[in-house]
């Protein structure tokens, strides 16, 4: 039972970083079975946890699912604990697999006044220079340098405030409340 706990304890680590064959061999020796059996067992459990997390099933449903496996009640309870403790993180990792666009990370800005250029002297042209930091779901960061003028900046703010206000409308609130 202790060895079993040791193996199941490594499950979250496997899900995060990938499997480590050495742990299989170690456990196989202690359990007096071959490494392949241990590997299958572990992979089976990983599948159980990933599917359960993906579907976000309730405790009752989880118990019903493991009941068919014929484990002891103590083991079922242990597995349920494992599920509840790790499901958020598993869902987060699974979420990184979905196709997605880069998401907003940060915005840096700077106010400049253009005084002259090769084509025209004696200018007073205010500009806002911005650095938009984006992040891919895999963790790759990128930054784009962009520029705009004061009038467009006000327009951008107006439009995006409208976007934010949309979430607070009755329509959106109703959807968010009812689709759970």
């Amino acid at each position, binding site marked *: 039972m202790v060895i079993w706990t040791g193996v199941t304890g490594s499950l979250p680590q496997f899900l995060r970083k990938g499997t480590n064959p050495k742990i299989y061999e170690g456990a196989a020796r202690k359990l007096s079975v071959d490494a392949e059996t241990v590997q299958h067992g572990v992979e089976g459990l990983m599948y159980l946890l990933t599917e359960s*997390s*993906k*579907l*976000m099933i309730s405790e009752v449903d989880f118990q019903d699912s493991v009941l068919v496996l014929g484990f002891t009640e103590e083991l079922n309870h242990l597995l349920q604990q494992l599920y509840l403790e790790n499901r958020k993180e598993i*869902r987060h990792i*699974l*979420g990184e*697999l*979905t196709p*997605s*666009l*880069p*998401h*907003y990370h*940060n*915005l*840096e*800005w700077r*106010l400049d006044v253009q005084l002259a*250029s*090769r*084509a*025209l*002297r*004696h*200018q007073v*042209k*205010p*500009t*806002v*220079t*911005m650095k*938009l930091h*984006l992040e891919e779901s895999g963790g790759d960061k990128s930054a*784009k*340098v*962009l*520029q*705009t*003028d*004061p009038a*467009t*900046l*006000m*327009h*951008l*703010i107006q*439009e*995006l*405030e409208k*976007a*934010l206000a*949309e*979430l607070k409308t009755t329509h*959106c609130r109703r*959807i*968010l409340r009812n*689709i*759970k």
Partner: protein
Amino acid sequence: MELSESVQKGLQSLADATFFDMKTFSVFIEVAFRSLLSAHADRSVLDQPEFKRLDQKLLKHCHTAATTCILEGVKQNADKSTISACLEDVGFDAERTEVFYTTYQKCRSDLETLLSSLGRCPPHINDVSWRLEYCIKNGHVHKVNEPSYLISLNVENANNGGSSEDLHFSCTMEQLQDLVGKMKDAAKSLEKATQL
């Protein structure tokens, strides 16, 4: 206002009544200014009936000289005295100087706008569009149940002949609040700066 020898020579011809009488001169000045402001290069710009009797080579030389002089004036923000002095140096009489300067004043701000749009700069944001969606589930995770925004910035590349592209990214409500907050900080600083 420094002008090259070639430009000065062209202006001298323009000042010469044997080549350009007053009527032809006035038409020429209009044509010169108009050719700078029109959106597309017009090959037939010098095909005016008034220019028919003139030597084509001379006409082109004068046109180049005049447009160079005009652009130099706008670039340096030249005032009346500078322009007058410059034109006097190349032999313009008072009447021709007046015709030139009047048209210069008329077209000046449009020419300034044109010149200020030239040059290198980072991609310029023109517009933004947004989409609010509620994600119910995807292939890897069910019961997501989260709203998210998809933002598209329409950006113009001044360097690539004005080609525009869209920059897409997604964000949560909190992230969009952060973005808008920072933009508002920039706008506030802008307002303060204009009051200085």
